[in-house]
């Protein structure tokens, strides 16, 4: 139990470091969009494990992001906690064996998350055509990029879940 906890933290820090040194060659689109590896991890974890664990993972991942490149410590931790809880809500209600469903959750989750982040960071989304720009060049491209990457991560996580532990189906009765 404690080992799993420790491994998660190491993994989150590793993801954070890769996220902040993400090579420019893989930044696509007009606005040079990179995916959000930490967010993918939070959403998939919450999807597989529910609101409580998802919330904790979201908090931790957000906190790591705060310490690495954040301005106000606790900012991304709080938002991570929120998205973890929110996505975790789907854990007992949606069939998890379907990769397409997971991808859709990532897509919608990213849109929701980045929209909230933009608002809370003070981007004036509601003046002029800022909202359109934000969605067209930043939020949607990132959601698509995240979805593509999540396919791989989903396959890995699903495999781990089946191989080493309780079958995902059992989470429904927790």
């Amino acid at each position: 139990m404690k080992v799993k906890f420790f491994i998660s933290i190491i993994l989150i820090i590793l993801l954070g470091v890769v996220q902040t040194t993400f090579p420019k060659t893989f930044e696509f689109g007009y606005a040079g969009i990179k995916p959000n590896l930490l967010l993918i991890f939070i959403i998939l974890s919450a999807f597989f494990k529910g609101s409580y664990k998802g919330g904790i993972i979201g908090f931790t991942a957000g906190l790591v992001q705060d310490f690495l490149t954040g301005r106000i410590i606790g900012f991304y931790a709080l938002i991570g906690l929120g998205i973890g809880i929110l996505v975790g809500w789907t854990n007992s209600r949606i069939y998890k064996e379907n990769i397409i469903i997971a991808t859709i959750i990532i897509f919608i989750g990213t849109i929701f998350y980045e929209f909230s982040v933009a608002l809370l960071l003070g981007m004036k989304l509601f003046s002029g055509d800022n909202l359109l720009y934000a969605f067209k060049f930043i939020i949607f491209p990132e959601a698509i990029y995240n979805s593509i990457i999540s396919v791989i991560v989903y396959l890995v996580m699903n495999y781990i879940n089946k191989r080493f532990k309780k079958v995902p189906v059992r989470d429904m009765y927790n």
Partner: protein
Amino acid sequence: MKIFKNKTISIILLVVVAVLLMLFTFSDRLGLSSIDISGFVVKPVQSLLSNISSRFGSTTNVFKENKILQEERDKLKTQISQLETDIAGLEGFKSRMTELENSLQLKEQFNDFNFLTTDIIAKDAGNWSINYVINKGSNDGIRKDNVVVVDKGLVGKVIWAGTNTSKIQAIIDPDSNVSARISSNRSLVEVSGEFKYKDRGYCILNYIDKDINVSINDYIETSGLQGSTYPKGLLIGKVIQIESINAEPGRYAVIEPIVDFSKLEQVFVLTQK
């Protein structure tokens, strides 16, 4: 995990912790600079990864001919930027001829600083901010609000100085505001980052007074007014576009910074002697 028996209480606890952390960051009381995750655990890994990332970028050029053309192009670019800097210098000098005394003060101002060379080891994790982490911190004399430059122009300022690493905010970050002047007519303006323009590496002149003359190719430099973070006379960039809007004050200008933020690897921090 067994300590947290009630799940709801644990979640509420986390919320409280997060809010407290944010408040402490604001009032700077906890001295969270001592918790330097970047410096202690991550800096070596980040430095290594940054190295690999930049090498990966340059090895995608397979053909040698490409490389030769690239080198030539880079040489020409350096020449052009040198010429641009010369032009900017000349324009500023023209109007500053009657303020010889101020020019002398300017020289003395830069003598007060050390130029500290640092490498960028990380960029902001998200797609909304233009912030960087550099590999030196308070141990090397860096303090919050230190100005960051490259040899040509202004990059930004230090927003957090840890023991071994620091975080800097670029002038094109949406949160950044720099008090500035138009070099030719000395009008006071403000250079701000804007989230629509940051991706192309540009920023804007917002809230331009009605009676100020702004034209394309005007050079913008820091104003160095009393109490402002940035010393006087640092080159920021030049105007490349003027847009009109419906709200007051009717227009804004797009600035192309002297610094190419897409190619930043090494920056200088101006620290106090």
